[in-house]
């Protein structure tokens, strides 16, 4: 399959770093997603009026407030300091996923490196939260219900934690690559540029659901690390 033309690659070629942008397109597209999010945050911050809420403020309060309530619903009251990380993951992954729908841009999550880095951050953060709360007694999460069987349970639990990282990565990667393949095939086979548009509703729903699943799983790992071991 021939390589499509990407805006960021053309932009970097004008600067002179064309080779770098050609080898790592997911990296430069993730920079574009970060710049878009930072600009949106600056715009939201500058339109906050305390007495009469503006429209932009209402929208962002709805999103962030809803995410906070949802996270605290799952993790309990002690999970409130940890919701910014998972909420950021959700918004960032959603933006990265829908970037693949626009022509000229590539979804950064269609590459294994982006997904692996986010999955490692999510899972290791949950481990650190558990260590911080329970201290050395965190090992009781790994030993299972009956103490004499601890030697059997510890390797199984460690492999389970590593499998969480792998499953998070591949779930997101497989979904977004399948979506991009369908778009590429529809343009390639049907020959018309607007051929994939009827499927875009399904794709946007898929992107949202995948970002939501990633966020929910990271929240549940944090909840599992905070709660008492059985």
């Amino acid at each position: 399959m021939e390589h499509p033309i990407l805006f960021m690659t053309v932009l970097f070629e004008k600067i002179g770093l064309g080779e770098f942008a050609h080898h790592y397109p997911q990296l430069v597209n993730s920079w574009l997603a970060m710049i878009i999010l930072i600009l949106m945050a600056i715009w939201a911050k500058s339109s906050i009026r305390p007495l009469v809420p503006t429209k932009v403020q209402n929208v962002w309060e709805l999103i962030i407030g809803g995410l906070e309530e949802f996270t605290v619903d799952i993790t309990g009251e002690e999970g409130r300091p940890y919701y910014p990380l998972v909420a950021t993951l959700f918004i960032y992954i959603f933006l990265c996923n829908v970037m693949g729908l626009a022509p000229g841009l590539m979804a950064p999550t269609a590459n294994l490196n982006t997904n692996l880095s986010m999955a490692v951050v999510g899972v290791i953060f949950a481990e650190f939260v558990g260590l911080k709360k329970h201290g050395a007694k965190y090992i009781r999460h790994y030993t299972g219900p009956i103490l004499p069987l601890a030697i059997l349970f510890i390797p199984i639990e460690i492999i389970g934690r590593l499998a969480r990282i792998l499953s998070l990565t591949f779930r997101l990667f497989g979904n977004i690559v399948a979506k991009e393949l369908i778009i590429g095939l529809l343009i390639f086979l049907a020959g018309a540029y607007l051929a994939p548009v009827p499927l875009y509703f399904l794709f946007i729903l898929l992107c949202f659901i995948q970002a939501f699943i990633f966020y929910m799983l990271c929240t549940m790992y944090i909840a599992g690390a905070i709660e008492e071991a059985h």
Partner: protein
Amino acid sequence: MRTKVALLAGALVLALTNLALAQEAAAVGPTGLKFFITTVFVAGFGIAIAAFGGSLGQGWGLKSAVEGIARNPEASGKITVTLLIGLAMIESLVIYTLVVELILLYAYPMAKPLAKFVGLEVG
């Protein structure tokens, strides 16, 4: 619906690649050709079986969710959220199979070293 889309993607990929590989493999030699034919054959059946099992699992989950909503329409919000999460979990297994198939067809790095090890001359 989503597994149908994944299934269609896999079928389209296989159809195109089969055509391309047939031309590519004829230049390699008879043993290389056998290797490629077997790989494509296995990849086709792999995704079909995964989609079969995945659809069954999602159908049972959906059935229980709809029964739960019918019994208790007030809890439909929570049931819908749980249903969506469960469906994405089951679907991810089908997606793993699609990823393995993509690796087999497009990026099988051990093809040449393994073939040399076994004794086939793939080239």
